[in-house]
């Protein structure tokens, strides 16, 4: 995949080139405003690049596609639909029984049993986030794009949600591209962490996270990887 973009005279992404394998979990890591969200939007087809292109499975991306679902922060769920309605949103073409079956399956997978008829306003932030992931998974996409999905959650819920996401990823094996500015989050989740520099965003380095799940976040290897990324970004790991 090669994409380059300049919009409004601001060069947001510069000469970014990245390959993502099927079933891989990749984190795009960089400071706020560096252009990593823009990159994700380009990959998802919401923004077309000024130069370069995105190819998925050999096919150039021309726009958003139900085979690749973008998950916003929890605010992307539709507040006028119930939990069931949200999960079933992308399934209107399926026969009724198949649809009900899928809805039930994903409600269970993301742990929202008992909340089928609830509206998003009655759910907590973490539940809304799981609902949005369930809505995305229900259409059985090949890829998921997550844009700082846990950014609005408190740190305890965030930790739990990471575990949930890994559990779901291991069950469904989707290709995931996950944007975050949280170094720890990236190392806990990803197979590979793509470290991006400030605007215009370039890929500064790609770090393979060679630790098996579940990851011990106080192991030597974990700390080594973390310190390595700190150094790449140019931060001393002292506060």
């Amino acid at each position, binding site marked *: 995949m090669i994409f380059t973009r300049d919009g409004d005279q601001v060069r947001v992404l510069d000469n970014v080139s990245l390959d993502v394998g099927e079933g891989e979990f990749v984190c795009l890591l960089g400071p706020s405003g560096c252009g990593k969200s823009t990159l994700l939007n380009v990959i*998802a087809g*919401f923004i077309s690049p000024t130069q370069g292109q995105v190819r998925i499975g050999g096919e150039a991306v021309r*726009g*958003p*596609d*139900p085979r*690749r*679902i*973008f998950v*916003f922060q929890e*605010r*992307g769920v*539709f*507040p*006028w*639909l119930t939990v069931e309605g949200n999960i079933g*949103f*992308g399934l209107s073409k399926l026969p009724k029984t198949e649809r009900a079956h899928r809805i039930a399956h994903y409600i269970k997978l993301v742990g929202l049993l008992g909340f089928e008829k609830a*509206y*998003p*306003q009655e759910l907590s932030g973490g539940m809304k986030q799981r609902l949005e992931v369930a809505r995305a998974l229900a*259409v059985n996409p090949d890829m998921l794009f997550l844009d700082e999905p846990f950014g609005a959650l408190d740190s305890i819920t965030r930790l739990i949600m990471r575990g949930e996401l890994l559990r779901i990823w291991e069950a469904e094996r989707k290709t995931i591209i996950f944007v975050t500015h949280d170094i720890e989050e990236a190392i806990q989740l990803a197979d590979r962490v793509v470290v991006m520099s400030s605007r215009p965003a370039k890929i500064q380095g790609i770090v393979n996270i060679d630790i098996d799940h579940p990851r011990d976040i106080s192991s030597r290897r974990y700390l080594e990887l973390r310190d390595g990324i700190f150094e790449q970004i140019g931060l001393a790991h002292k506060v």
Partner: protein
Amino acid sequence: MNSLAQPMKWEKYFWPIFAALLFLALWHLSVKWSATKIFPSPLDVERGTAELISKGLLLRYVGDSLRRVASGFLIGAALGIPLGLLLGWYPEAAFVVNPTIQMLRPISPIAWIPVSIVWFGVGDLAAIYLIFLASFFPIVVASMNAVRNVPSMYRRAGRNFGLSPAKLIAKVVFPASLPQIIVGLRIALGIAWLVVVAAEMTAIDSGVGYLVIDSRNSGKRYDLVVAAMILIGVIGLALDTIFRRIEKLKSVRWGFRHES
């Protein structure tokens, strides 16, 4: 009692009723003390209301007014909501049409009365046309702004699931704008109720507005005038209550501030 304490159940009804009774008492005493021969006391008004009911005028007039408001308002909503959605969805269309709408909008429906009589004659149609005008513009503008305010995230999510533009409007844009559209409908109905009274005072010879002007013109029956005024207030309140109920429905409630 501090401000955090839940009011007791009886207090919820007691104080508002108390205030209303106080108002009636003040009214009664003012009439007594000023010894006015023209302005009626609450008791005169109550007798007047009873007279209207026994003559069968009350129900008929209320029915006439409500029917006019309902017809004009429903036509206004049926044309105004789709037009507003369209204008909100296609900024180019709004750019072309909006100045004309914004110019027509501040013209009071009352100012249309002479024209509507020329077009439709004295009768139901003229009144319905005025109500239509009164509700159409607020509904169009509210629907248009509602669509513009739909967070782009919802539209993008809808597109991501592969919806066609028509489906996107039906399944995402419309439900996302519904709370604001309902606010527009509620405002429009309030205006429509104001306008029907004015219309019936000039352009027609039945309805609650006609009751007000006719009671004065035929024998200076101010007890009936005030009875009709109170009736207008009560019905206006009832119409507003219907919309307050609609706002509480769960599929639109998220769009309103009254959390918890």
